[in-house]
């Protein structure tokens, strides 16, 4: 399979005064894919999106769209549909005029514009609000209108800057699904910025984790989840236990009695960190002879579908999540054995 690179972010760096906002970011985005830029605030993800949109100029590096260098093209010539964090709907225009604005600029007028606006309103499942003022819409409706406005111009790239962060949790979940369905329907190459790892996992074909202006890992979500490149990625993607496991001996470390083999770059004698997700730790009943891997439950909470534990072992607190059916008869204070599947443990050199 030959990959079809739509946008190549070619070694882009950006300095604000003395601050490096982005350092040598190199990213190839495939046509029609959904890319999420994920990272904590201040990691440069929004700056990167604004460079793609053309609102910021890169200090170094270039943007290649379909083989053409667009680094010096002004934003209005790029015509990438963008959805802003504040949505930035035009308050003095009706819904139809908001969605039709980009079309009007392209000379699509009269009936043709009306038809296209109507088509988009149907797509976002709000067919009856064309003549309403923007101020009369609910949060979810504004969201959809902002998305429709950006998609109306059939943009080569669809850019979103934390568009769902203002919505409440329930609505956000629904909008994530809807957004993904819309993106697939239009087949538009999409770049979304978010700090919410759940949202990123939900939406992305390709997840790009950024920290301090540099890409830490870029891969499909499941790969990032199961094989994080470093301890930051493991931690940022949530619900991972980071455990200091001491120095490596004989090509393996000892994780509370379970030996975990390490792959080549690490050498004996290096201090190591192990990352294990809460749902990848097993609990077993304890026999009298067991010594290694025994901890005590210091906290538990039944969340319905799953039960969340904190198990204290060797003075360390580990988070464990099990499905509720698996944990009958356990209470706070119970002694439990911890079991690890070595293939689900990621090892990093300790910082």
């Amino acid at each position, binding site marked *: 399979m030959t990959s079809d690179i739509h946008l190549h972010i070619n070694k882009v760096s950006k300095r604000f005064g003395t601050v490096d906002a982005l350092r040598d970011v190199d990213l190839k985005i495939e046509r029609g894919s959904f890319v999420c830029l994920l990272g904590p605030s201040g990691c440069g993800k929004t700056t990167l999106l604004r460079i793609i*949109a053309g*609102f910021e100029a890169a200090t170094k590096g270039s943007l290649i769209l379909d083989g053409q260098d667009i680094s010096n093209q002004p*934003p*209005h010539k790029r*015509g*990438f*549909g*963008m959805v*802003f*964090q*504040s949505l*930035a*709907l*035009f*308050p*003095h225009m009706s819904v139809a005029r908001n969605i039709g*604005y*980009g079309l009007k*600029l*392209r000379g699509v007028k009269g009936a043709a514009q009306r038809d296209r606006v109507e088509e988009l309103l149907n797509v976002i499942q709000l067919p009856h609000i064309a003549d309403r003022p923007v101020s009369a819409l609910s949060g979810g409706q504004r969201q959809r209108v902002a998305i429709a*406005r*950006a998609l109306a*111009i059939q943009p080569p790239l669809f*850019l979103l800057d934390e568009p769902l962060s203002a919505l409440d949790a329930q609505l956000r979940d629904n909008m994530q699904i809807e957004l993904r369905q819309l993106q697939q329907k239009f087949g538009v190459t999409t770049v979304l910025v978010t700090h919410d790892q759940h949202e990123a996992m939900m939406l992305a074909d390709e997840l790009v984790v950024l920290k301090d202006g540099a890409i830490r890992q870029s891969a499909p979500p499941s790969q990032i989840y199961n094989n994080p490149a470093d301890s930051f990625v493991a931690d940022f993607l949530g619900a991972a236990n980071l455990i200091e496991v001491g120095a490596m001996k004989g090509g393996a470390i000892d994780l509370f009695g379970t030996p975990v083999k390490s792959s080549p770059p690490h050498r004996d004698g290096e201090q190591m960190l192990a990352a294990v997700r809460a749902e990848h730790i097993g609990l077993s009943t304890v026999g009298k002879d067991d010594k290694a891997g025994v901890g005590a439950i210091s906290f538990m909470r039944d969340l319905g579908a799953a039960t969340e534990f904190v198990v204290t072992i060797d003075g360390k607190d580990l988070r464990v999540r099990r499905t509720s059916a698996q944990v009958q008869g356990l209470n706070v204070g119970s002694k439990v054995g911890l079991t690890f599947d070595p293939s689900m443990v990621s090892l990093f050199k300790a910082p």
Partner: protein
Amino acid sequence: MRVDLLPTEGGGTYRFVIILLAICGILISSLPVIVVTIMSFSAADNTGFPPEALSLRWYSEVIAMFTTEDANSAQSVVSSTITSLVVAVIVMVISTGVCIPLAYVLARGDRRIRSGMELLFTLPLVFPLVILGIAFLLIAESLRLDIGIWRIIIPHVALVLPFVLRNCLSAMSGISLEVEEAAVSLGASPLRAIWDIVIPMMKAGILAGLIFALIISFNEFTITFFMYTVDVSTLPIWMYSRTASSLDPSTLALSVFIIAADVVLIVLVDKLIAGRASLF
């Protein structure tokens, strides 16, 4: 239940105070207008208050002043009225024309430059008007400028700018850069985005600025008193000349006309420009 900061039950303890202050305020600001209006209907030649008998004679006199061309008066009321209106409209156009782009640049630019510029444009408010009048007169005379009506328009623009600029600036401050960027991302050039998005969103502020400019210029007396010439004079100057030695009751009738005209102008500008942001 929400607890109000001031007690409001049964009108609240402060109700009396609020009503008293409101009455004082309304009386002070409207008393002159009321007195002038009543006296303009007086039948007598003197200006005693309250008038002993009522009539419309001063109104017919005002109408006569406007309809019969008074050849021996170089500063006829008709020409000074026209001058006043022309000056006010030109001042309005120039000041908004200057302030809209200025407010945009200041709001989008460096914060320090903005406060500096605001201070600069507020200076005419701080100077005593008499001194400002003398200053403009000195400039005009020392340069020996023969610029006709502009010798009044230019000082008026300086006087009006701070009001117009302030209104435009506060209108700009509510417009986020993202809205503009949204328009640009949809394909609008930066200028087009300003025209399509920023200006319509500033409308209410621009409108308030226009009204300020119109009224301040139309009623301005102090600076104009230094700047008027035999050829170029405004209505307030004409009225003053009629009352300087003895009060002519026809000027009171004229005042009522001016008040009415002010109100009509405000409503007209508002209706013409405001649309949905209309004040009325």
